[in-house]
């Protein structure tokens, strides 16, 4: 019997489990930063940074500094940017733990001063 969690545990579409998780999270979030990717994917920060460097060298992602934070986005001009995004979103469907991590994040704006809920998330 096929289980989504089993596939999630070993999905290596982009060469390794860590690389696959980093790729899927980075592409799905559209704009992110290495520390966020590390937190959501449970991949060590240094590994995330190495993978992002490699992706940047290949022209798949681009980064820019915002303050002291390195913001990473998929290079919209890259030849297969749309296809990569469609693939990442599809893979996310079969990566339940990564999907749950992304769903636990609030990315829409939040009024200043609004309290966080009991789990530490921003209130809905």
């Amino acid at each position, binding site marked *: 019997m096929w289980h989504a969690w089993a596939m999630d545990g070993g999905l290596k579409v982009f060469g390794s489990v860590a690389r696959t998780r980093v790729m899927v999270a980075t592409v*799905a*979030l*559209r*704009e992110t930063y290495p520390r966020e990717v590390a937190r959501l994917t449970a991949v060590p920060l240094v590994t995330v940074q190495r993978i992002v460097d490699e992706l940047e060298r290949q022209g798949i992602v681009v980064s820019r500094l915002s303050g002291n934070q390195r913001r990473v986005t998929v290079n919209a001009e890259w030849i297969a940017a*749309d296809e990569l*995004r*469609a693939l990442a*979103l599809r893979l996310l*469907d079969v990566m339940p733990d990564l*999907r749950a991590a*992304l*769903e*636990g*994040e*609030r*990315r*829409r*704006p939040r*009024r200043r*001063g*609004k*309290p966080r*809920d*009991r789990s530490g998330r921003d*209130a*809905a």
Partner: protein
Amino acid sequence: MIGPDATLREIALTVGTALDREGVHAVFCGGSAATFYAPQVYQSEDLDFVLTFGSEDGAATRRALESLGYRFENEMFFHQASHFTVEFPRGPLAIGNDVVTNTETIREGDRVLHVVSATDVVRDRLNKYAAWDDFSALSAAVGVALEVPVDLDAVREFMRREGTGVFEKRFDEALRVFERRVRERLL
């Protein structure tokens, strides 16, 4: 009754009834309305009510909430016995460019609550997902669509209307991902 064990649904009905008795017409909406329709899928701890036009009576609103034991602080209402907060975001009640005029009225015994429809909750959450890549909003939209009947044609039509120009690709993609998750019952 507002207490530590009261669910969001119970509190919404209690607050809605207190407002109604003070002559305040307010519509329950936002992420908390998603929890109202799909409590096991999406948990909000913050109840949003929008006062409808002509009903923006701050004093009456405050009276209604204070009669239930709420105190007003930092633009929202807190209760000592419950972690659920109540807030009144500025109107008009709108989803994207659409002003919401048709709402549902839930009656349970002598309690009453005006709430946005399940279809509008899905439109609202999907709009948030498309605009901000907010996966928690996507999950709420899917959860509500799987839990209660939703007019999916109205959702599609809304997403096509909102997603114009540079937003077209984003909204098309959001709709595609939503429909796939509903079809595959992916929560």
